[in-house]
């Protein structure tokens, strides 16, 4: 049975908006990071899917999603490092507790 392109896109759209929703509603920085990862993965899926269905003879979409995964891994490492440092300083990773960096 052939899974057509719309199925993939529906999944990735759901992931994207779940990520956006999570990013705005969760006050825990870890949860926010997970939401960001969701959004990123949604775009990765899109790259792969469009490559597969629209330009089957080429490889750029796959490569791009690989790059994107590598970069998001690095970015996650940095984000977690920042969170650990914040936690050491203010004993919390709730966004409402770290409002000092203003003005």
């Amino acid at each position: 049975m052939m899974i057509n392109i719309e199925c993939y896109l529906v999944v990735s759209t759901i992931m994207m908006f779940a990520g956006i929703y999570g990013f705005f509603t969760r006050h825990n920085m870890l949860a926010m990071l997970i939401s960001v990862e969701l959004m990123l993965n949604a775009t990765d899926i899109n790259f792969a899917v469009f490559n597969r269905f629209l330009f089957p003879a080429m490889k750029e979409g796959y490569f791009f999603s690989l790059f994107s995964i590598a970069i998001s891994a690095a970015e996650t490492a940095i984000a977690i490092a920042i969170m650990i440092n914040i936690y050491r300083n203010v004993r919390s990773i709730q966004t409402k507790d770290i409002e000092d960096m203003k003005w």
Partner: protein
Amino acid sequence: MEYTIFILILPFLSFLFLGLAGKWMSHRAAGLVGTLTLGAVAAMSYLTAFLYFTAPRLADGTFATLIPVNFEWLPFTSTLSIDMGVLLDPISVMMLIVISTVSLMVHIYSFGYMKGERGFQRYYSFLSLFSMSMLGLVLATNIFQMYVYWELVGVSSYLLIGFFYTRPAAIAASKKAFIVTRFADLGFLIGILVYSYYGGTFSFHPDSSMLMAGGAAMMPLALGLMFIGGAGKSAMFPLHIWLPDAMEGPTPVSALIHAATMVVAGVYLVARMFPLFIVYAPGVLHIVAYVGAFTAFFAASIACVQSDIKRVLAFSTISQIGFMMVALGVCTSLDPNLGGLGYMASMFHLFTHAMFKSLLFLCAGCIIEQVHSNEMSAMGGLRKYMPVTHIAFLIACLAISGIPPFSGFFSKDEILTASFNFSPIMGWVMAIIAGMTAFYMFRIYFGIFWGTENKELHEKLHPHENPLTMTIPLVILAGITCVAGFIPFGQFISSNGQAYHIDIELSTALTSIIIGVVSIALAIFMYMRPTQPVADSLARKFKELYTAAYHRFYVDEVYQFITHRIIFGCISTPIAWIDRHIIDGLLNFSAWSAYATSDSIRSLQSGRVQQYAFVFLLGALALILLLIL
């Protein structure tokens, strides 16, 4: 003669070395480094002079003008560039001898005079800097190089006048000297620019095609402006006010800079441009003569009443430089036999004056070292205690008074002859000033070595002869003063470069000797005895004149009035108000408005991450909408 470049490089290296490493050196080592460098420079200068003047003359009877070293420093256009190099011609070689001799003497003398002073190494490094700049000035191949070194001597003069920087008077004097000469140098700079624009070159020989094309009409302006610079350095009226104050510096510095070398830079400048002056600007040359004559008279009249011996010597220097300027100014032709005698006379007087005036200053230094005061009231009767200084001072006084066979007679006689050839009035005026010179020099001579002794002070201080480092330079300079008059100066230097035989014109010589002797006799009559009834009664009778001359005819007060009341009060204060209130107000307003705006919108930066993200999302949506529509 490529080695001549080392005449400039050696003192510069010595300046750098003493300036950087002097802190860790002993006084003796630092002094030795400076003195040995100068000794090497002096040896090279003498060698250069010997080789230069013994070389065969050219076909037209002049000495060749040599440029052993020259490199292009700042090229502007293909034809106009600023070069740096070494130029040897009769006057620059003569100046080499003057500068290196006096500088060497001063270096040796300073061992004794500056002994134990704080900053001894700094003093020697500044002396090296000055020697380098002054030598560079006279060896300049073009007017711009001369200007660069001209400013360097100004700076080193500033540094050395303010050497005792803990004394407010010294600081004020150094600033005054720098600002006044710098102000005059503005004229020099504009003169150089005019000259190079219309002459097409910075060298001393302007492009003849440029001059044909209308440049010649601008030469008087350019040369006149250059003379303003020269007048500032050479302390011509009314720019002379810095020189008497410059006596706040150490006395050897006064001897080197403010008597022998730097102050004659203006004379040297006019002499350097002389071929142009005579051809294109004879009118400006007459102005030079009148300014010189007035300055000579003015300074001589002030020198007659001052009581500070260094001040008297300073005014006497101004007066003698006036003589040199007059001698240059009265020239009417390039041929020394047809009215160009003054050029040779001026250079001759520069040479002899440098020797005997530095001798006078060094003697004054010896005296000041012993009585700890510049005032004549602290002296009197010193001949018993300091015989060598006494004799040296007497020789120098006789020389400056124009008594044969001392050197001053020969050079001053040539100046008087040149002045009489120009016009009898100028001749008589200069002869009378020469008489005043003899009078005031013997006035201080008797005031120092005869007259009323200040017994109280002398019993406390026990004045005695100074150490050998200080007396040997006196003896050497006195020896030069005795014999320098017999140098056949005209053989080496004359206005057209050809050999000129000096013959003393009997009538002029007799006139000047008689005037000199009469003035000295007058000084003996008035000042030799312990009490001075004649001088006192004269001072009482002409009270206003005496007071005015004592206050240097209030020129400093006039400057004070012009600068403080008129320039500061009427021009600077309103401009300062505009600056403070309008210009600053505009800037303050822009800063304040930026601040007020930011303050009112700063609460947007709430620090809540989700809020930022929401704004970001809204922005993104807005962009998307924009793209769709």
